[in-house]
């Protein structure tokens, strides 16, 4: 059974097409990534899955149900914009969300306390939320998302703003969740995370689906292998070779992309003639490269200092 089925979903906000005729299947028991630059339509899609906003057209089937009121209690949702009642006691907040999800009060408290212990928040059960550090608040928010043991976990940018320790904690929790048979859907604009965690993914760009499927299939079907090149001397001439489409500097290495017809061997022969080659490696293309290729919008995106993919039009300086 599929955990999620979207059929021709469209959503417009005052003239702006946010999600354009998107169809998608997410099987049960996988970690599925929603990938795209900021403003691509990821959050809008997730909010429609949660029935927080309604699509203008198309149908949604979540956990085999069409009625969002029925499924809401079976989903755990961590929105991108997180928040808790600042003056509420931590365990009270977790239990409150549990109760709204249909748990009995005692059960919600018990399970909430268990999870708080597990996430090393045990000492803070009767503290107010605003007494917690930002990192602890993020963990508490995650605890409140999974307190009712949902079958489907939907996380919108779960890694944004996390410190490395909490990032590991949340990643572990997601993997553990899948091991127990749960489905995780998460969105991110950081491709490395998706690459590391996902079984399958969905790429969205300017409201349109670019690609979806298991990550292995996506990578193996990618037409362009990336060539990682390290050499002594100045290799910048590579950029000017007619069959090279793109070059990216990665520290002292160069990542070189060739056009469809050319064989990597031609490049190797050419480079060997001019400089001393230390290593020449034909690698799987990264998700980022695949995305750039499929979006067909080379030059429109750029990578920010922290490795985020940003659309040039989306409010970048």
């Amino acid at each position: 059974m599929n955990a999620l089925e979207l059929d021709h979903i469209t959503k417009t906000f005052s003239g702006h097409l946010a999600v354009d005729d998107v169809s998608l299947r997410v099987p049960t028991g996988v970690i599925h990534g929603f990938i795209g630059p900021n403003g691509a339509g990821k959050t809008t899609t997730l909010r429609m899955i949660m029935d927080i906003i309604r699509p203008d057209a198309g149908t949604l089937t979540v956990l085999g149900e069409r009625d969002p009121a029925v499924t809401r209690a079976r989903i755990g949702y961590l929105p991108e914009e997180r928040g808790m009642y600042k003056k509420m006691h931590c365990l009270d907040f977790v239990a409150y969300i549990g109760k709204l999800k249909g748990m009995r009060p005692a059960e919600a408290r018990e399970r909430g306390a268990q999870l708080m212990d597990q996430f090393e928040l045990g000492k803070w059960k009767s503290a107010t939320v605003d007494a917690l550090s930002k990192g602890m608040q993020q963990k508490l928010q995650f605890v409140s998302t999974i307190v009712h043991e949902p079958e489907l976990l939907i996380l919108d940018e779960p890694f944004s703003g996390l410190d490395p320790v909490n990032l590991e904690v949340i990643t572990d929790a997601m993997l553990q969740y899948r091991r127990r048979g749960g489905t995780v859907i998460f969105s991110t604009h950081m491709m490395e995370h998706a690459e590391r965690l996902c079984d399958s993914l969905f790429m969205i760009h300017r409201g349109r689906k670019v690609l979806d499927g298991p990550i292995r299939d996506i990578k193996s079907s990618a037409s362009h292998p990336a060539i990682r090149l390290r050499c002594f001397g100045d290799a910048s001439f590579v950029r000017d070779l007619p069959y090279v489409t793109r070059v990216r500097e990665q520290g002292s290495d160069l990542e070189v992309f060739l056009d469809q017809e050319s064989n990597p061997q031609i490049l190797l022969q050419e480079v060997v003639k001019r400089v001393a080659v230390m290593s020449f490696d034909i690698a799987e293309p990264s998700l980022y490269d695949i995305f750039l290729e499929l979006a067909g919008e080379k030059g429109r995106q750029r990578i920010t200092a922290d490795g985020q993919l940003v659309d040039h039009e989306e409010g970048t300086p």
Partner: protein
Amino acid sequence: MIRRILWVTHREYLAYVKTRTFLISALAFPIMLIIGFSLPVLLESTAKPARTFTILDPGDRYATDLLNRLFAGREEESILLDGREYHYIPPTAFTHQVDRGDHQVVLEQAVQDGRLFAFLVLTPADSTHLCDASYFTIDPAAEDFPRVVRHVLTRVVALQELLPRVGDETVLLRGLDGLRFATHAVTEKGGELATAAHMIRSYAPMAIVYMLWVSVLVMSSHLMTSTIEEKSTRVIEVLLSSVSSFEFMMGKLVGLAGAGLTMLFTWAVPGALLFSVVQNPTVQQVGAGLGGAFSGTTIFWFITFFLLGFLFFASIYVGVGSVCNTLRDAQSLLQPVMFVLMIPLFLMVYVTNNPDSIISVVASFFPPFTPFVIMNRIPANPPAPLWQIVGAALLLLLSTWLMVRLAAKVFRIGILMYGKAPTLPEILRWARQRS
């Protein structure tokens, strides 16, 4: 669905009732009541500065006689009224260096300078009056003293001018006292002498309206503030993944309606206790007056109209709160609502005095006014007829239902909107949209 609404209700109720604001407002009302009633009593017992007066009576036709009667039995040349001394100073103290024609001018100056509180000028009889007395004072609102002076002066003049003609002092004084005229208030207990309690009873409806108005406004504003807070702390999206926006809004409305009733209860109980325990006659009279207005039926209708009125206005407030990100935005959007809310307060005195006039009846059936005007009329005289009360309640119920549905639509769209607050026409467009 009901269970989720109830959980939201539960949290919202506790979140309000457990705050310091609630504790303060719950305590503030009885404390203010106690201070309000004990302050005049306290002030009464504290010493008040003495006042001075003089009498200008050329030829001393009445002045000596008047003063003797005013000072009756006292050693000092003063009278004591309401805990305050009024000292007599002979006019010569002010006028010894000026011409007779300028005496009044000098005394007026003394009053203006504060050396004198008041003075009395007596001039001889003309064809219509036995005596012409003019009272000059810095404070015409202080009526006790001139009333006493007038009463005593009347006797002095009458005895001097009329006794020779009437012959019998007893007859003369009986003539002066005239007849007894008493006002009786007719109540369930039959006719009884009108007291301050009866006066208070006639104005009690205004107190009831005011209480209703304050509680509706306080609770609605709190609801709006908490909605804006949920938006700005971004907790709202977490909640909306667990409950629908309608369930969430209803939970908030019901929770705060309960908190409002609790607040009224915390006002009523110490209030009732105060009136039954404190033996001060003023407090007793106020208690009797208010108590007369608060019959069982009135309380029933009060709760009914509080709930309906609160839901009506709270849904406007929650709708506005949902589209705004700051209190300032919300306040400017609420200005027209505040204007409408003020009108029943302006009408309060009119409706209390004319509860059965056509304006009062029409205003009862205008939903935004209904709770206040009808609660003004229920304990009034004559009370609003039952058909009007029930009719107005049903009309308000219908409008409240429409208002809640409208608010739910606006809420659903507005609650996730950040940035600039929408204009009224935009909000109305959302309201018209089919969900």
